[in-house]
């Protein structure tokens, strides 16, 4: 395929944001019929490169050639018309519209100018079936979880007749089955000669699907390789510029701490807690210093379970005890009073406050617990914020930058920092490593382990089973919005064992 001419060629691309050089002379080529992975740490400039390509940002230098012709793409509409179909990193759909509309908007089937609703719904359902989704296509997209929304965005992108398909971290909120399904579709498109640009922080996925990869670091091009010619270790080294410490010790530590944790005082007990339509009543006990993992498929109710424990949604049955005493969890403020923290999976709408600065976003929860009359002195703010910017390697390390302008992964770190500084006794984190690069992911896992060592209880929700297995002392398995089993994370528990539980719906 090297003989073929590239369908897309970007040379010397430069993009400057006030205060940041996001892209500095980046070259990038994409051939028909290949899956090309764009690799790099959080903030390396991957999404920015994509957005310069689709005309969201105007480039400050360099040239873009499409099919050999130099082009200037004025915006996403023009990009689409030029045959570039894109799934952007943060799911960019209109949640007020129905699923079907989100897939077809802009190219609805019409007759005499009138949209053919029936046909549109039928085709949407068919398309989703190809991704193994069975949704009510006329329901508003907002009634589905982020993961489903991600799948819908993918469905929209692959249905377009495109020569270039761009997928910016499409798998960050998908589980293994979904990913497999997506890859199947990608392979089919590839065979049809579509060039696919793929971004993901999951190295396994990169090695499974990509033919070639380009590595960025700090806005600069590092190198381009055929995927099979580069080992994982080498790849990581090139991405982060240094060697990555292994994480295996964490797993051992979790094993050894397991018994200690189980014997510790129960911190929080949920008894028959449930909410109709969201999650069936469940019992769950979390001890001090214990890491409880939640495993389950998309839509199995993990998020819903976690939200009830924070009072983000109100339970309609059951009760919650903290330190053996019943508490009335009517809203998050109550939970925070009992030092429970919750970081939502939906960072864009339920996490960050875009126009506020990094500093303000980080201190927000702490400030909320102190009440408005007792502001955190500026000096103390700066200290805390600096500390966490360093600890979590938030980039750019500028606390006054609006958080909206940070890359996705860095926004996630800001949220984590927000909760860590409140020094919670129970930290509920829903998909904390979503969209986070390998280096930072390791950091976060290490951090969770450390915190639990220090006595903090953690409820860890992640679509990545591996992560859950590595960190948890105990794993709660969900299926169909019901907690079906609680497993001690002993040495013999592995991904297969959990999958089996999910598959059989074991209640025994």
């Amino acid at each position, binding site marked *: 395929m090297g003989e073929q001419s590239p369908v897309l060629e970007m040379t010397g691309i430069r993009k400057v944001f006030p205060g940041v050089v996001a892209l500095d002379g980046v070259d990038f080529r994409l051939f028909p019929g290949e899956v090309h992975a764009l690799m790099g740490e959080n903030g390396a400039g991957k999404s920015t490169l994509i957005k310069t390509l689709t005309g969201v940002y105007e480039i400050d230098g360099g040239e873009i050639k499409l099919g050999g012709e130099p*082009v200037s793409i004025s915006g996403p509409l023009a990009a689409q*018309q030029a045959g570039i179909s894109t799934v952007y990193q943060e799911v960019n759909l209109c949640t007020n519209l129905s699923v079907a509309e989100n897939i077809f908007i802009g190219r609805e089937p019409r007759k005499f100018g009138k949209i053919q609703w029936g046909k549109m719904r039928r085709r949407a359902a068919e398309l989703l079936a190809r991704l193994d989704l069975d949704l009510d296509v006329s329901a508003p997209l907002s009634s589905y979880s982020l993961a489903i929304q991600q799948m819908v965005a993918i469905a929209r992108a692959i249905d377009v007749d495109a020569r270039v398909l761009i997928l910016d971290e499409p798998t960050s909120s998908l589980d293994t089955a979904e990913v497999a399904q997506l890859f199947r579709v990608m392979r089919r498109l590839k065979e049809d000669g579509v060039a696919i640009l793929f971004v993901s922080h999951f190295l396994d996925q990169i090695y499974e699907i990509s033919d070639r990869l380009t590595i960025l670091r700090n806005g600069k091009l590092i190198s381009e390789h055929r995927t099979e010619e580069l080992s994982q270790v080498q790849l990581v080294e090139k991405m982060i510029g240094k060697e990555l410490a292994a994480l295996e010790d964490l797993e051992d530590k979790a094993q050894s701490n397991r018994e200690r944790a189980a014997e510790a005082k129960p911190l929080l007990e949920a008894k028959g807690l449930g909410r109709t339509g969201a999650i069936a009543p469940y019992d769950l006990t979390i001890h001090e210093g214990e890491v409880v993992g939640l495993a389950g498929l998309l839509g199995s109710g993990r998020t819903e379970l976690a939200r009830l424990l924070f009072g983000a949604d109100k339970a309609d049955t059951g009760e919650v005890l903290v330190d053996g005493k019943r508490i009335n969890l009517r809203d998050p403020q109550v939970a925070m009073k009992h030092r429970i923290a919750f970081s939502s999976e939906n960072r864009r709408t339920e996490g960050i406050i875009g126009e506020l600065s990094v500093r303000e976003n980080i201190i*927000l929860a702490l400030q*909320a617990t102190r009440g408005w009359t007792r502001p955190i002195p500026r000096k103390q703010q700066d200290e805390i914020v600096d500390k966490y910017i360093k600890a979590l390697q938030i980039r750019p390390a500028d606390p006054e930058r609006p958080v909206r302008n940070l890359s996705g992964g860095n926004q996630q770190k800001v949220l984590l920092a927000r909760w860590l500084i409140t020094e919670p006794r129970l930290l509920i984190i829903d998909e904390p490593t979503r969209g986070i690069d390998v280096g930072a992911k390791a950091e976060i896992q290490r951090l969770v382990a450390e915190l639990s060592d220090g006595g903090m209880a953690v409820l860890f929700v992640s679509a990545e089973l591996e992560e859950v297995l590595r960190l948890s002392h105990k794993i709660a398995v969900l299926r169909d919005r019901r907690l079906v089993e609680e497993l001690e994370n002993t040495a013999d528990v592995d991904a297969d064992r959990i999958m089996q539980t999910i598959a059989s719906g074991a209640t025994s």
Partner: protein
Amino acid sequence: MTTLYKNRLFWPSLILVVMLAVNAFTSNQFIAFQDGHLFGTLIDILRGSAPLILVALGMTLVIATGGIDLSVGSVMAISGAVACLLISDLPNQNSLSGVFIAIGAAILISLAAGLWNGALVAVVGIQPIIATLILMVAGRGLAQLFTEGQIINVQSGPYSALASGFFLTLPIALLIAAAAVGLTVLLTRRTALGLLLESVGGSPTASRLAGIGARRITIMTYVVAGGFAGLAGLIASADIKSADSISAGNLIELDAILAVVIGGTALIGGRFSIIGTVLGAIIIQTLRVTVVAIDIPAEANLLFKSVVVVALCLSQSPDFREKVFGRFKRPAVQKVGAPA
């Protein structure tokens, strides 16, 4: 220098300075010292803008949380009506304590009005524009009911001093407005209130999950807006020594919102600028005075006003500056597709 030029308040300030210069040119006395206090067109403008500053101040806070308050004009009318009614019933209208009680009562009622708005918005969950529309319509009716549709005159020295008195050579009305501005700046910037307001305005859902009592904060902003509107109503009625429940504060909500927006606070909520709002309010008052000073015929007033507003909002738009004055650099290559 370039940063000054880029500041979003630069152009509004410039327009203000130009208008003031015009006034300085047309007026007999722009600023002078007379009878032991400052005097002149400038002082008239500043004093005249006090009610609008107050109303716009409250409006800024409400808008910061993503709301809007249409009822401020009616609250002004109620507050003026209550105060004047109480004062006109006094055996001695010059009695300080009597006037203070009247003022206190008026402010209390205004705060209650704000609480009502806040409760409708934050507790019942009605869209702010319609929630406050209720009081906008009914509130003026209440004021008319209190005054039986008549203009209530008062002859109270202490009361009219609110608007036309001087203290330390400066108009008391201006001092009240300044104090309110100072207090608001202090409350929002020296405490964490400002941050929490901006957070609620930026994203109510995310704020709730960060443990912010969005409901209480929202209610508070409406209460404050009510209180400030009440104060503005007092000054406005003291200015004409009477309560005119029909025209007091009529359409002031539009001017207040305009002031807020000129000041650089977005109507969708979030970041707000109090100093910007004050600037916006003074610009609007100056505009009002300038129209008369340079003899714009009555029927062309609005046309003139629209030109200034258009100039203001365009000057503030970075996109306008870039597109019109900006560099026209574009790579000389073929365009793909239609421009979005």
